[in-house]
Structure formats: structure tokens, C-alpha cells
């Protein structure tokens, strides 16, 4: 597996919304390189004929009935918000539309 570069770490940091300093980028690049090198071993045994498991146990079909339940009050919902305006969560300006 290829070594992980500083640029790749910068890309990962952008994707995961982490504002990292230059020093951190270098630091994490070195560490992630070691870790990824070590964990890449999984590919040795992961042959095509083995089905992947996303869950610990093979359970299926657990749903809830379509019934309305009590919601939080707006006061409870907004209690921990860093900023509130008109019973809404106030957030900094959004750069653009997504999805």
C-alpha cells in the first residue's frame, strides 16, 4: 500500500472538517502512514469468496410502528445551542448549497 502524504492528510482533514496546522499535518501524516501500513494486512486474507459483515449479529427487520410520540419542547431542543434566534438554531453563513 502506498505511503500517505501530507497532501492526503490535508484532504482528509478537509473532508472531516478539522482545521489542522501545518505542524499537525506533518505529524499526522507520519503517524497515519505507520498505522495504515500496519492495518493494510487485512487484505491478505480478505479473498473474494468471503462475504463482508457490517454487523456483529445477523439480525434483520426490526422496525417501530408509525406512531407519533412526544417531542422535546423548543426550550429543551435549543437549551444547549451556541446561538438561537426566533426559536431556530442560529449558524454562521453557509457557503453554498450541497447535495
Amino acid at each position, binding site marked *: 500500500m502506498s505511503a500517505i502524504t501530507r497532501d492526503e492528510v490535508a484532504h482528509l482533514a478537509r473532508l472531516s472538517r478539522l482545521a489542522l496546522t501545518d505542524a499537525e499535518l506533518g505529524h499526522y501524516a507520519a503517524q497515519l502512514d505507520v498505522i495504515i501500513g500496519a492495518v493494510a494486512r487485512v487484505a491478505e486474507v480478505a479473498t473474494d469468496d468471503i462475504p463482508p459483515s457490517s454487523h*456483529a449479529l445477523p439480525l434483520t427487520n426490526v422496525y417501530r410502528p408509525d406512531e407519533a410520540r412526544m417531542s422535546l419542547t423548543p426550550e429543551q431542543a435549543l437549551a444547549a445551542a451556541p446561538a438561537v434566534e426566533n426559536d431556530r438554531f442560529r449558524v454562521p453563513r453557509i457557503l453554498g448549497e450541497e447535495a
Partner: protein
Amino acid sequence: MSLTRNTAAELGALIASGEVSAVEVTQAHLDRIAEVDPQVHAFLHVAAESALEQARSIDARRAAGEELGPLAGVPIAHKDVFTTKDMPTTAGSKILEGYRPPYDATVTARLREAGLVIIGKTNLDEFAMGSSTENSAYGPTHNPWDLDRIPGGSSGGSSAAVASYQAPLSTGTDTGGSIRQPAAVTGIVGMKPTYGGSSRYGVIAFASSLDTPGPFARNVLDAALLHEAFSGHDVMDTTSIHAEVPPVVEAARRADVSGLRVGVVKEFAGEGYQPGVLARFREAVDLLESLGAKVVEVSCPSFTYALPAYYLIAPSECSSNLARFDGMRYGLRVGDDGTHSAEEVMALTRAAGFGPEVKRRIMLGTYALSSGYYDAYYGSAQKVRTLISRDFEAAFHQVDVLVSPTTPTTAFPIGERADDPMAMYLADLCTIPANLAGNAAISVPCGLAEEDGLPVGLQIMAPVLGDERCYRVGAALEKAFEDRWGGPLLKEAPSL
């Protein structure tokens, strides 16, 4: 003798019979916390007032003639990863400093229903990511056996609280060993139930397909009582199993292993294992044999791939689970000065609010899920997961339980592995397979390592929903060891 030395079962009986009051028991533990926690730092929040209030209501209920459960009035230390509506819930992270959730986790609610008295919230590695509790944003917890050493992690506050008699019981969550490893290195009992046997609702998620709440106690029966008190099906957690809680208390009382087939996992020995740990482990296996168990060696070849698979699956899930901590709806917000966009404020908040291990795992998981890398990393890790389940399945055709050391080494000094993530990750080498396959597994004390005099844990792994086997074997071993040692292992701990 101080009430802090009693077992939970004893305290429950004393309170139920009226010999002591819940308030007395709670106060004794609050006093103990005041005395030793400045050195141990097991607690992030001590809820003295609400604990005493809860104790008073238990006493009142008893006085009114109400029949109380076996743990009513018994104090418990609660890992700060479970939401509690009357106490802060931080997950050991700066990003949630002072956060008060508007709801109780299912486990929290069940503790309250059972009459347990929550005396405080315990320290942990930030978002339960770590094996030493050094990754807490609020400073490390110290091992009561040696204050310069780690108490294990991520549930290190909970293990240290119980090992230092600040509480007879505590809760933990186990994602890769976060209950069993701290229990092992502090000389107490820690159980990871079958995945889905205990509810994750209100557990601040680290890795959803692995996280499992479980109990800590100083003996096997207490752990079983607590296990029974908060486990079982929960409609709020889709992955919780719709089945009866296995008969764990009965098994802990039964405590016999005659005729039981015990498999020693061949792969968990050799290089990287401390000689004193292996010696104590072999001694424990011999003891099981002398108690009538049939011991065989079992090979689980894929277990050697469990660690790398875990360090792909857990970070992948956490990279997504922790996305919600963005400073928009709750918690820390950094950089909202009118010059930064929401996107920038999120990145500044997360950079300031998360510690290095959390950032490392988020980026590792982001990498593993990225297009172009998914198949080689996350996809392969999921296949290893299948192989591990198959190894367990094959093993449990031959034996009733599997055993191994809980950790390759005893508690290491604080700071020793802080800059070496890979070395830190090795602490979970033996505990991870049970998480990946969802099996039940327990750690029970099996003596002190020759070279450093620190506790060693024995891990007992059972099939899915075979939790009672862990307790049965653990209790039998505990009884035999205590006969040999003349009391519990913790008696050997230096007094604080």
C-alpha cells in the same frame, strides 16, 4: 469495617434488611471519594446531592414497606459516556464541556429503576477511544495499584473507582476491550455482554457495531447482579436482541466448571506477552483443569487479523458518528466572529474540541471509507470480521468457552505509550475478537505478575447469548483463587 469494603450484594442486603440506610452507604462512598479521588481522579463529576436525594428516596420506600431489588440503594459510578439528564455528559471531550443532555440513556434509566444510586460520572478516554484514559480532555486517571500507571481504558475512571473502593459497582462500555482491559489491569471483574444484550441508546457512540455497555465490580456475583439490572431488550436500540437476559446471576452463584470444555486460544501467546502475564494465565488454566474442566488448545487463525480489522472498522464508524459534533446545535463553538463561514466554524470547533487520538481516528476512518480505498481497507476489514465469527463458531463446536490473557501486559506507566499509537493499540490485542463477532467475554483477576506485582486478568469468551458461561467459569475461578489467596486479589493492593 467501612461500608466501602462491602460487596454490592452485601450492601443491597444490608439496606433491604434495614441494618444500614442507603444514605449511610452513599455518604460513606462520598467520603471515600473526597479522600482518595484527588489522587486517583476517577470522577469527572460527583453528584453528591442527587445521590443523597436518591438514597433518601430508597430509604423512604423501604420504610413504606416496599420490596426493594437486590441493588437498591447501592452506589454506582457511571461512565461519562452514558447520557444523564441531571448531570453533565462530556464523553471526556472538550467539545462537550458542560453539556447537559435532555434525556437519560436506557442504561441510566434502568440503573435508576433498579434503585442504584448514581454517585457520579467517571473519566474515560475521549469518546472512549483509548486504552489508558490518558486521552481524556480532563486529565488522566491513575491506577490505584500504582498511581504512576494507567488504569486501563477507555473505561479507566470506572475501573479505578471500583478498585479504589470509591464505588462497589460501575458501568463501562466495551468497543475493543474498554471494560475488560481496565478490569484486568486494576484487578477487578469487567464483563462485555453479548453485543445487543445491553442497550446502546444514550451511549455516546464510538463504533456502533461494536459498542457494548457492561458492568464492573470487585467480584463476579456483583457484576452479574449489575449485568442483570441494566441489560435486556430495548425498543430504542434496533440492534438490541429480543431475548431474555441470560441467567447470569444464577451462573455466578453456581460457580462450577466440572465437565466444562475450556479452549485455550493458541494465537494469544508468545512475542509481545509479558512473561509474568503468561505465567499467571497458565496457572489459571491449570486451576480450571484441577476444578474438573477439560482443557484443550484451540486455534483461531484469523484472530491475528482482528487488531488491524478493528483499527479500520472502529475508526470508520467513528469518523461518521462524531460528525454531529460540529458546534451548530450543542457543545463548543469556535470562531463564530462573523468572519467565518459555517464550514470554517465547524472545522475550527472540531480542531479545538477534539484531542489528538480522536482526530487521528477520524482521519484514519475517513481514509478507510474514501472512494478508491474502501474495498482494500473497510471492505477487507469486514471480511476479516466474517472470518473471526467463523473461527468462533468452529471453536464453540469443540469447547464451551475460550480463554486467553485479557491483555498482553500489566498496567504500563502513564505517558509511556502516549506518542506511539501502535504500541497503545496492542493493549486490545486479545479483547478485540469478541467485539468483532459480538460474543460475550469477561475478565477476572488471576493474580499478580511476578516482575511488577501488578494485576493480571484472565479473559473468558463465550458464544453469543452464552453470557452465563462467562460468569459460571469466572465465579468458579474466583472461588478457587480466593481460597488460595485467602481473600480477594484487591486485598493485595497498596492502601490509598
